[in-house]
């Protein structure tokens, strides 16, 4: 079982969460090119190692949170609520 540290609920089973994807800088829609926008929407870095990800605690606090996870062994660093600004 993988435990994810929710800043509201504490450590919870990963089954309670929905994966909302890795966090990437969002390009400015008014100046970006279609290729850049497409890359932001659909292309993933798929890093082997530490990544910053957004998760949704759908069976708990129903909040988005940001955490860092090592994709090679599922080690997880403490998370923050996405609305705190650190996840944007």
């Amino acid at each position, binding site marked *: 079982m993988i435990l994810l540290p929710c800043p509201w609920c504490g450590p919870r089973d990963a*089954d309670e969460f929905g994966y909302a994807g890795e966090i990437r800088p969002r390009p400015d829609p008014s100046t970006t090119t279609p290729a850049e926008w497409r890359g932001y929407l659909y292309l993933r870095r798929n890093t082997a190692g530490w990544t910053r990800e957004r998760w949704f605690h759908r069976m708990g606090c*129903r909040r988005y949170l940001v955490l860092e996870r090592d994709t090679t062994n599922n080690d997880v660093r403490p998370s923050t609520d996405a609305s705190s600004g650190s996840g944007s």
Partner: protein
Amino acid sequence: MPETTPVIHGPVAPAPPVGVLAGWAVSRRRSGAALTLSDHSLLAKAAVKAPWQGALADVLAVPFAGTLRRTAASTELLLTQPGPGEWLVLAPPGEQTALVTWLERCAADVDELVSVLDVTHGLCLVRLTGAAAPDLLAKECALDLSERRCPDRTALRTAVSRVAADIIRDDRDGNRSYLLACERSSGQYLFDSLLDAGAEYGVEVTGFEPPGVTEQTARAD
């Protein structure tokens, strides 16, 4: 032509014998088992959403992941906050209009975005009572329900039998007791799942005893 009175059917099929209470079809079965499961869906229920540290949170005065009993609208309420900025408020059967009116009056006094919704018919609510209740729940959810981590008057949300459910620890007369609330459509499944998991502990179905939300259970019938 004989007159008929409409009867409300809850999300869980009542175990026979069946009677009517506050317009709801309820089980009249009375079990003396050490571990019992009963359908409490007929309790009036309201869902409130508001900023979790806002003015309405101060009015409701329920700590996050906790519960509070208070008397309002001439009835005793059980207020819970299982999620940040999300409250589930319970009142005795038939009191949903008074409950929602009271909550809307509270919301009218604050200058923030608030939603108040009567979910009496939208949620299933069951009560599991007995010393073995945490052992039964340990089979169905991945939370530590020990006294240290989940004392009386704790409210939290997690997956029970893979269904998102609020777990509210609400001890009765010194006995371990949990209220579990989930979406109505999953209610019968959750009820049956708890019965199945509790077979080894001798769980039995017992009928609802009013009023259901006060400190001491009134002995009716």
